[in-house]
Every structure is written in C-alpha cells, then in structure tokens.
C-alpha cells in the first residue's frame, strides 16, 4: 500500500490523458469491465456487457448517431486479487467503468466514494429493471439508494450423495421427500451429523468424509449461524447473537469430535475437494447452486440427479431451514466522464435483459434475476435452474450491506476456525469474538 501515492500520481496522469482522448472522439468509447470470481463457466458476466454494447450501437445507429463502443473485459478467477486490484485501482482513479462484484462491497465502496448509485443514470421503473426480483434489488441497495443492478442470483444448498443415503436406509421415496422434510424443519442439523456418522460406520465413506463442508472462508458459514437462530443485522445495526453463534460453532466442533468432519479440513486443496464430492467420496456437503455446473461440466458427474439430492440448509436448534443468496451486482465506479457513466449504465441495463442474463444463469448454473427470465425456454427447460429456483430462492437471506460487516465477518471466521480446529474451546472462542467485536466495532454491533 505504501507505493500508492507514487502509483496514484502516475495513474492520475494516465487517467487525465485517457479522459481527454475520450472527449476528443466522443462517439468512440471504451468501456472497461472487471469481474471477480469468474471462472470458465461465468464468462457471460463480461460477455453480456459486450452483447449489450452491440445492441446499444444498433440503437444509436437508428437514432442516426455513430457510436462505437469497445468493451475491455478483465476476468479475475479469484476474489482476493480482484478486490485488492479494484480497490487500489479505484483509489488511484483508474477503476474500470463497470465492475461485477459481491453485493457486500457496496457498503464500504460507497462510503469511500469508489462507486456511484446506478439510480442516478437509469430509470428503475423501466424494462427490464422493473421485472427484477424485489429482494434482489434491495440487496443491491444501501442507505435506501440503489447502487447496483443484480447480475445473478444463487442459493447455497445442502447436498446428499444418494447411493450412500440409500445404503443407510433411505428409500427413493424418502429421498424425494427429503427436501420438503428439511424445509419443514423435520430433518435438522443434528440429523446431518447422525447420517454422516452412519455412513462412516458402514464404511461407505472414509473417516472425516461424512460431512464435508466448504474448505475455505465464505458466505456459506453465515447460513449455519442463521440455521441456529442467528441474525446478522437489525435496523441497520449488526447483531452478534452469542447463543446462536455458540450453537453454530458447537456444530462444527461436534462434527470434528464425532469424526465426521476432518479437523484439518479448512485449507485443504480445493481441487481435491471437488474431485471427492463429484465421485461420492463424501456423504453430505454444502455448496452453491453454481456447483452444479462445475460438477457436471468439469468434474464429470453427468448423472447429477441420479446421485445427488439437494435441499435448504436444515434448521438447527433455535433456528429454521434457510439458504443464503449472494448475488453479484454490476456497479458503476466513480471518477469517469458523465457521458461514459451514462453509456456504462445503459450497458448494464441492457445486459439485464432476460435473454442476455439467461445465458449466464444457465451456463454457470446461477439463478435468474427476473420473473421473465424464468419463463425463457433455455431456463425453464433446465431442470436444475427450475428446481433450484423453486426449492431455494424463496427462502434465501442475504448478508447485510454494511460497511462494518467485513470486520464482523473476519472476527466470526477466526472464532469458527479456532473452535473447529480445536485451537480453542467453543466457549473461549465465543468469549474472544465478543471481546474483539467490542473493541473493534463498539456500539456499531448489538451483542446479545
């Protein structure tokens, strides 16, 4: 970070140069777009903007304008380097015009003035924005202002390996009814551990493979807190529910104690994890709707529905079945010419057309963002998209857009990791989390 001022001087100079060249050829516009967490299945996050640019050029031609839009696409396959690059570039006033990122960035980035509200540029009452699911639009807002347009939606289900479930006594009919049982709260987190144990005792999976969670920090872990009755935010204030968090931490500590989850599970190589869940080496695991695409396309699990059942995250003590949606949003970054911003906003709007967005939704196995999208053949004839939308999306929560949520998250994860690996007892972890939350967030968080 220390080289920033130097970097800034250089990039400000570059930005000034760049902006003057845009002014000189007003109708020849370059729109740069970056996206995080974008693997081979997610390229439509960027391509959609390119398709939109072609459409906008045609519209301009009909109005008699000669508009040429060059779209520069930069995908980042991970989040870490993407967020570093974006925040530092934005500080140096060298941010791309459009960025596709997790909605939770809206809080800190808007406070820092890195992004501008998209509602300044588009008519939210017009098609296709007026058809986007209301809860997704809310997730793209902060302080009552709409900052971004949802780029996709997803949900994070619990997955069960069917053959193993059958081997421990579930019939086909039981498995078909399982998602409903989970939704009704009749199948709980305790049952997950029970069944995982049974699978191991029968030798279907190796020790530590019964319940096989995500291997790194991620929004997924907030679902467990929700399952055990926790709330992330209330009336704009963060909430740390000690009892609920204790139960969530305890769940993982118990999983390790029972031997159904490995103590050293966090930090294991991701590729290995994918291989294992795709081949039935794991019994029960959780992930996101987009896992379907990777399992089927990259990991060779062609008969997904024959092998896997998916459901909401089961309820734990004191909570209810839930799932979390972590939509990506298109955001406009600050520091560009007004004219460029307006064009970028138009591109985002056009890219949100059901016909264009559906390409991303189906290819990457994310969920659609609008009602009309779910009626497009490509989407409605896709079993995964249809079932996941119906089964999960109505019960989806989201993480709050709050500038301090990241701090809370880091501390919460640290505590979970410590109780999981046995570095601290659950009580000690909770105590340390509370102390640290108090000292870092003070009265910005309600502790109860």
């Amino acid at each position, binding site marked *: 970070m220390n080289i920033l001022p130097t970097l800034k001087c250089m990039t400000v100079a570059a930005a000034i140069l760049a902006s003057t060249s845009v002014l000189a050829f007003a109708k020849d516009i370059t729109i740069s777009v970056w996206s995080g967490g974008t693997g081979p299945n997610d390229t439509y996050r960027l391509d959609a903007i390119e398709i939109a640019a072609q459409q906008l050029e045609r519209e301009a031609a009909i109005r008699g304008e000669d508009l040429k839009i060059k779209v520069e696409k930069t995908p980042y396959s991970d989040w870490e380097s993407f*967020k570093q690059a974006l925040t530092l570039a934005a500080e140096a006033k060298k941010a791309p015009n459009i960025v596709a990122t*997790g909605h939770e960035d809206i809080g800190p980035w808007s*406070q820092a*003035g890195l992004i501008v509200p998209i509602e300044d540029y588009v008519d939210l009452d017009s098609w296709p924005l007026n058809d986007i699911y209301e809860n997704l639009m809310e997730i793209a807002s902060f302080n009552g202002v709409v900052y971004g347009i949802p780029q996709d939606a997803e949900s994070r289900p619990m997955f069960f390996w069917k053959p193993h479930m059958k081997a421990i006594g579930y019939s086909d009919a039981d498995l078909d009814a399982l998602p409903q049982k989970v939704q009704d709260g009749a199948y709980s987190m305790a049952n997950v551990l029970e069944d995982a144990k049974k699978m191991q005792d029968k030798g279907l999976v190796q020790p530590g493979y019964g319940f096989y969670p995500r291997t790194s920090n991620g929004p997924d872990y907030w679902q467990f807190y929700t399952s055990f009755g926790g709330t992330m935010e209330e009336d704009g204030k963060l909430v740390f529910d000690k009892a609920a968090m204790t139960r969530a931490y305890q769940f993982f500590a118990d999983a390790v104690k029972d031997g159904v989850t490995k103590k*050293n599970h*966090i930090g294991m190589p991701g590729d*290995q994890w994918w291989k294992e869940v795709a081949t039935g080496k794991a019994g029960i695991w959780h992930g996101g709707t987009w896992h379907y695409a990777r399992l089927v396309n990259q990991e060779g699990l062609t008969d997904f529905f024959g092998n896997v059942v998916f459901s909401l995250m089961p309820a734990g003590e004191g909570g209810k079945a839930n799932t979390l949606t972590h939509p990506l949003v298109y955001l406009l970054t600050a520091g560009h010419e007004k004219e460029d911003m307006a064009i970028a906003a138009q591109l985002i709007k056009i890219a949100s057309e059901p016909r264009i967005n559906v390409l991303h939704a189906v290819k990457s196995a994310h969920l659609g963002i609008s009602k009309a999208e779910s009626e497009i053949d490509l989407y409605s004839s896709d079993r995964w998209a249809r079932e996941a939308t119906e089964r999960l999306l109505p019960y989806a929560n989201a993480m709050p857009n709050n500038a301090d949520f990241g701090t809370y*998250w880091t501390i919460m994860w640290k505590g979970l990791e410590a109780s999981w690996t046995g570095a601290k007892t659950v009580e000690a972890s909770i105590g340390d989390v509370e102390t640290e939350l108090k000292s870092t967030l003070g009265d910005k968080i309600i502790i109860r």
Partner: protein
Amino acid sequence: MNTSRMLGLVMIAPAAIMILLFFLMPVVLTGVFSMTNMTTATGISGGAYQIAPHSLNDLKSTMPDIAEQMAQPRYAIDEAGMKAVEGLGLDAGIATELRAKHIGDVFQTRREAERMIKGLDQRPSTPDVKKISEQFNRSVVNSRFSSKEELFSALDTLGFKLTDAQKDSVADVTYTGWNWTTENFSRIASSPDMARVLFNTLLYVALVLVLFNTAYAMLLMIWTHYMPSAPATIFRSIWLLPRITPVVIYVLMWKWLAWDTGFISVLMGKFGYPPKNYMLDNAYNAWVFVVLINGFIGASMGMLVFSSALKAIPKSQFFASEVDGASRWQQIRYIILPQMRWPILFVTCYQTLSLLASFNEILLSTRGGPGKATEVWSLAAYHTALNNYAGNLEYGLGAAMALVLVVIGIVLSLGYLRIFNYGTLVSRPLIED
C-alpha cells in the same frame, strides 16, 4: 573542491532519489498510515461529507429535532426548482406543464417524483428526468459534499440554521474519511490474538534461525570443509537448490509431498494408515513443515557465508594445529568458531530481519493455518491490510502491525550487536597501532 563535491552529489542523486522513493517513503508512509483508522471504506485519499442514515442515527442522540428534519427525504415542486428547471434549456413545454399541474406537490421519494415527471405529456428522456428531479431535491440524505463548507452551505440553503457547535458535530458524524488515531496500537496491545501471533512469530524466527540458518549451515560448512573438493562442491550445489527454485514451485512440491493424495499419504497407506493432509493435520505438523520449508532455503545462505569465511582462515593455522596433534573437534572449537563471530553475527542479524518480514512460504503452504496456528506477524499484517473477503481492507491497522515489526527488528538488531560485542569487532587491530 566545491565542483567535485557538487559532482559527487549529482552522481549520487539518482540513487538517493531511488532510496527516498522506494525505501524511506514506504517506511514513513507506514508510520503515517499506522496512526489512522484507514480502511477501504474510509478511502486513502481523504473523505467527503455524506449525510447517510447511520450518521443521522448518531445525530439523534445529540440534536433529535434537526436529525428528524434532516431525515425527511423530500422532493418539493417549488418556485426555486421551477426556475432551475427553466434554466436547464429543455423544451419549454415541460416547465410550463410542471408549473401548471404540479406546483406545490411534495414527493417522499425520488422515484415518486420521477414517476410524475415521466407522466408529463412531453415525456422527457431518462437523463432529462434525472436532471429535472434533481432541481426539486430538498433533502440532504445521502448527498455527498466534498468539503465542510459545501455541506454547511447546502444545509443553509435548505433552511437548517445550525450553531457552530452543531455544525462541528454534524461534520464529525457525516465525515466518511479517515481520522488520526492511536487506537490501532491499543488494539494490538489488548488483543489476545495479537499476542498469539507474536508468539508464533518469535517461535518461527527462533526455530528457523537457530536450527537451520546458523546451526545447520555451520554443520554444512564443516562437513564440506573436511570433504574432498569435488564432492563438497556437489553437496553445496544440492543445498542451493531450494534457494534457486522458484518459491511457488518449491512450496508446491512440499504440498504434493504432504497432502491427502501425496507421497507421504501413499507411503503410509502401504502400512495401513488412512490418507490425510500431513501438513495441515495439526498445528504441530504445520510447524514442522513451515520450519523445514524455510530452513532448507535459509541454510544455504549461512553455508555460503560460513564456507567463504572459513576459506579466509590461513591454512597454516590448520597445518600447525595438526602438527600439535589437535583433533578435528579441537580445530573446530579453537580455530574455526572463534573466527566465525563476524559471519555468525551477519547471518543472524540478516536472517532475523528477513524471517520477520517474510511470509511468502507460509502463505503458499499453510496460509497461516490450521486455525491460525502458523499465522506469523507479517502474514497477519498482510491479511489485515490487503485481504478481507468482504472488501473492507484495514490499511491503518495493517500498517500499525507492520510498524511494530520494524520496531521489533531494530530492537533485535541492536541486541545482537551488543551480544556479539560489535564495538570490538570493528575496533582497530592493536597490532597496527
């Protein structure tokens, strides 16, 4: 004389500028950053004044009436706004119709106001709708002002009459940028996690330094000294491999060795042990790997320095000792070690500082895990300042942590100089007096 002095300055100028820019500036900036609460959210280049809902919440306790008034989002179609709309240079019919049908109307939200504007007979384009609605905005909620003066004058035009004290507190709660603070250091001092990370760091530096960078390097030096020269060269070259292999590949090879499907698992599988990730299985294993990975790289440097220092010891001393019937051990104890003080000081000092600051091998191998067991200070500073999943990077706290590291480094170096009696090492040899 003067010219040559000038010339000297000119000659050294490029280097001096480089040192200033790339060595001194970062340290100074780290110091500056560490005294702030800078994060992604506050920005680096300074903040603005934004009357966000949460700042109004803060104001409610001190000036409830004003906060309540400010919280009202309003779009009022009034005469001032009409004048402004007329000045926009849009079709005159728009203003006329607005005035005729809607003067005096008040809308709670921007969206409602814009719906009305879109409903005009002469429906303006979306950008024009935005321009028009802005003229009627009589609310300060979420407005962003780049300076205090702008904020106050906006509040003034909207009819908020504030005293100076009130102005100050409004400016305080609406400021989005960073502030000067020493809180980072009190957080570091009071956090049990920081104490744990500090302990990890000292453990890491001590283990690698003592076991490999000095002791093992010394063994390598002695072994190769008493070997015939050809095998000695080959042996030294092998020990250089970890250092010359690109670190990513070097660490990847360790991971291949250690993970569930790796060599150790396969080998142990033959004896009936289930496969597991040996590196991350528990904190103890992780430490063994971290120390080995760094130690194998670090040993070669000491080996080279010590070996060359050994070459500088006059051969005659060894010959004379052999004549006197000295054993190998006596040669090491009375000839080699006493003349190694300088190189040992150098290696110890240099490696302490580089170990304190290095975290790349740990980041690549264990990422500080399992459960922060191998999180060292520099890695923790990196994680704090440059890696937060939710996008809010804590530059200020990270810089404070980096600064603590610099201080520890300086203190340790001074300590070493004392232990090795630096004064006598650099004093003039008595014989030349």
